[in-house]
């Protein structure tokens, strides 16, 4: 009985602290967001809805990285007229595939009376089925009616029922309702005067956070039934989604964003200097890190901090070339563990980091140090002054300064440079054993590389020990909390969310820095769905310290 009581009290306390109960500090919420679908989300939604064989050929306008995340930039994204042309083109291509002879039998739920004439009943059945899924909320009757009318007119003019259907579908794919995930709000009964997301917006927010795609049928049903407004119903859905294999996609999307993998699209290496850095290597480098992350965080329910020290990863044939290791399955992925005495440990030493944060023809201790600070510690490093002379740093053949350390030491003698380089260089120089393509080296211009350093009074030797320094830095975990919450709500934490952020950080620590648990804490919280009432925007302005708390 006593044991039962003790357990009961502990459970109640835990619930109070981290179970979205009364222990959760109130968040004022942010302004409602209108977030543009990322390209990956667009592709995933089309694949989920119509199948993976429907090709989305082309690219959309890139998003602007804001407060460290594209997903926050997506909340401030517009679509220009030229960018819209691309959406139009792709929408037409997708729609044409959906109704073509290879797919219509599966994707169109009925057969028209005639292939060459409008059929309102069949068109209505089609749009009634896909409409709510594309718009992520019930289709209003007048919208459905308009879609049927439009496709009917198109079908009549070209004497082709399916062409008419494609016309209507392409139109849907170009609407703001599809291209933007808009926050629809309603008064919050638990916070008089406050607002919260309505059930369907909750479903979308949940789904794009956890799965990086549209809500599935079960989630839409939960929204329709009001389950998402109850703690119990919400928790049930969140648990279901966290247990799904689709969680991988959600976690991958977040880390792709946080790690800046969009810049791989424009990454170029000098083929003379780094012939082995071919496109398949660049592709696999991202995949390796994402697999390392999902294996550790999801499959093994590991500690987030261990991402900076883990020697376990995966390897592909192309990557084996640059890592210079044997790969037992060159045409696929195999688990790989770097030996204990290997200089590589943690994702900072993987190609996706050291190659991405380098110049096309040389490594860059500065870019790497800056990236560690900004990505993993949420510390903003100021841009260099406009009049800085980089000639000395760029001259890798200077006989007087043969290593990056020597060049940067000379460069830092300029007072305008010293301040920032003092922040960046020690971390970056620890990664100098990896050249601009991420290949291991022991010398630069025949001079042995000194990869030692000191950060915040902690001395270290080489890349693996740098990973340990990042692992042990308390800012590492608070930065992750900050980023993940910002990613979830599409905005940086606001001034009134200071206590809430502390609460999240404490919860993250309490749960052993396990990311799925942090996701659960966020997804089941009130804060995740809170919307600041109009006129109360001062409290929902981005926190001046938010990005660094």
């Amino acid at each position: 009985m006593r044991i039962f009581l003790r357990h009961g009290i502990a459970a109640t306390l835990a619930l109070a602290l981290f179970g979205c109960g009364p222990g959760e500090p109130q968040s004022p919420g942010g302004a409602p967001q209108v977030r543009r679908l990322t390209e990956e989300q667009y592709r995933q939604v089309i694949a989920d809805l119509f199948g993976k064989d429907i090709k989305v050929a082309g690219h959309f306008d890139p998003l602007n990285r804001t407060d460290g995340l594209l997903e926050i930039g997506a909340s401030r994204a517009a679509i220009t007229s030229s960018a819209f042309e691309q959406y139009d083109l792709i929408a037409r291509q997708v729609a044409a595939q959906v109704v073509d002879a290879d797919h219509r039998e599966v994707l169109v739920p009925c057969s028209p009376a005639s292939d060459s004439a409008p059929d309102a009943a069949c068109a209505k059945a089609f749009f009634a089925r896909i409409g709510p899924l594309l718009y992520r909320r019930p289709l209003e009757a007048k919208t459905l009616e308009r879609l049927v009318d439009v496709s009917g007119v198109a079908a009549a003019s070209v004497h082709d029922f399916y062409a008419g259907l494609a016309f209507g579908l392409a139109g849907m794919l170009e609407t703001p309702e599809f291209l933007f995930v808009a926050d629809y709000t309603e008064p919050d009964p638990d916070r008089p005067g406050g607002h919260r997301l309505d059930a369907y917006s909750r479903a979308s927010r949940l789904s794009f956070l956890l799965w990086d795609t549209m809500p599935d049928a079960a989630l839409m049903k939960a929204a329709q039934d009001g389950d998402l407004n109850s703690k119990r119903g919400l928790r049930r859905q969140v648990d279901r989604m966290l247990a799904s294999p689709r969680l991988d996609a959600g976690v991958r999307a977040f880390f792709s964003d946080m790690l800046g993998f969009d810049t791989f699209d424009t990454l170029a290496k000098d083929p003379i200097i780094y012939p082995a850095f071919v496109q398949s290597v660049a592709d696999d480098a991202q995949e390796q890190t994402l697999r390392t992350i999902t294996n550790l965080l999801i499959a093994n329910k590991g500690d987030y901090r261990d991402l900076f020290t883990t020697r376990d990863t995966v390897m592909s044939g192309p990557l084996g070339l640059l890592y210079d290791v044997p790969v037992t399955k060159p045409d696929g992925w195999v688990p790989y563990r770097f030996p204990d005495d290997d200089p590589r440990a943690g994702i900072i030493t993987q190609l996706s980091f050291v190659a991405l944060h380098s110049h096309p023809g040389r490594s860059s201790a500065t870019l790497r140090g800056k990236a560690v600070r900004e990505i993993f510690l949420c510390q903003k490093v100021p841009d260099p002054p406009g009049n800085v002379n980089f000639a000395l740093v760029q001259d890798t053949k200077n006989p007087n300064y043969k290593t990056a350390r020597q060049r940067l030491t000379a460069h830092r003698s300029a007072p305008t440079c010293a301040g920032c380089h003092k922040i960046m260089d020690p971390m970056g120089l620890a990664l100098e054993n990896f050249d601009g393509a991420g290949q291991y080296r022991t010398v630069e211009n025949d001079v042995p590389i000194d990869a030692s350093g000191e950060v915040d009074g902690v001395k270290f030797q080489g890349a693996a020990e740098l990973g340990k320094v990042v692992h042990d830095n308390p800012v590492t975990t608070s930065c992750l909390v900050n980023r993940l919450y910002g990613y979830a709500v599409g905005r940086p934490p606001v001034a009134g969310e200071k206590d809430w952020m502390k609460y999240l950080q404490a919860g993250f620590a309490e749960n052993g820095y396990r990311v799925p648990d942090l996701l659960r804490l966020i997804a089941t919280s009130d804060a995740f769905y809170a919307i600041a009432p109009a006129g109360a925007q001062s409290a929902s302005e981005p926190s001046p310290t938010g990005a660094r708390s």
Partner: protein
Amino acid sequence: MNGKPEWEKGVTMGIGKGTFAPLFVRRLRYCVVALALLIASGILTHVSAEPAKKKTLGLAITAWRTALYETPDGKEECPDGLTLGGDQVWLNMLTPEQRDKVTRHGTVETTQLRDFALERGPHGEDVCWNPAVVNDPPQKTVQGKKSYGVNLDGTDDGHATPRTCAHEKFVTPDGARGIDNQWYRVIGCTYGWRAAGGYTEEMPNGELRDGGHPILVEITGIDDLRNSTNVEVAFYHSTDGMIKDNAGNILPNSSYRVAKDYLYTTHGSIVDGVLTTVPIDIHFPFYAHFMHSERFIKDARLRLDLAPDGKSAAGLVAGYYDLDSFWSYMERIGELFTVAHFDCPALYEAVHRLADGYPDPKTGECTAISAGFSVTAVSGYIIHLDAKTAQASAPAGEVR
């Protein structure tokens, strides 16, 4: 991953786990005998330092071409000009009236004419599948004295021996005498094998670079990449693709799984960075013209210049090219005579007439022809998976 030179890495995985078990036992036996001798001589008591660890080098062959000595327009080696394609040879044999008839006054399309030229046996036989059913003019062959290659028969003048037929010798461009390369003599004046139009060899090399099927060479027991008195050399086949850089060059350090169907081992030595192997019979697989084929080279030996960093190698594979193996490939690509400019009946006659190795005990005719092939290779990780299966699935008699 480490910063050591290529050849210092233990690139072979799973060595001694099955594939090499017989070799391992053999080695062990040698060791026991050696140990006994050492003890008997009292030497062991004076040896305290540990023996240096043996190293392994894995190589993947990236190109395989007939070693041709070529001069501009073939003036030195082919003074009578280059060979013609089978269609032209055939047309040249016809009277103007016959030619006019078969070409329907010159209106027959090239592809159809090719078929006519191919199926012109007395009973409509395909003359590449049945090259002896017609008598075409002799093939133009190399008249020059220079060639690449090695002395395979050990003679200075190419006189007949129990294992060879009489033949002429070549001299290498840098003066080495006694060179055997009758294969070059046969095809050295044929456009399809020459550098300018080497379609018949470019095709397999292109497939090798784009589709995989590399031949692997694994050198084990290396003391020093410049000099090692006794190394083991194994030949494997892999179906894993090769990775190229943006310029199309095969990159070093790819991983290749050993396919289960090929395994040949021999011994060799490295002197001043040149690997030379003891001759063995090897079937070298290749893929070309949508077919899997092989070159069966008897007494095959390797002479490879190993780059000091171990990342690449280049040299020769020399031996006696089995004529049946050669023709089983030719009869299937016979239709290429129009682009490669060979004539199947003439080529068949020439290669048999000039064959100089492995005389048939009954007829005395040689069944293989001396040949030299230039090869290039890059370093690679050779992956031995399920070694037991690999050993069991190798063709009987081919695993040594």
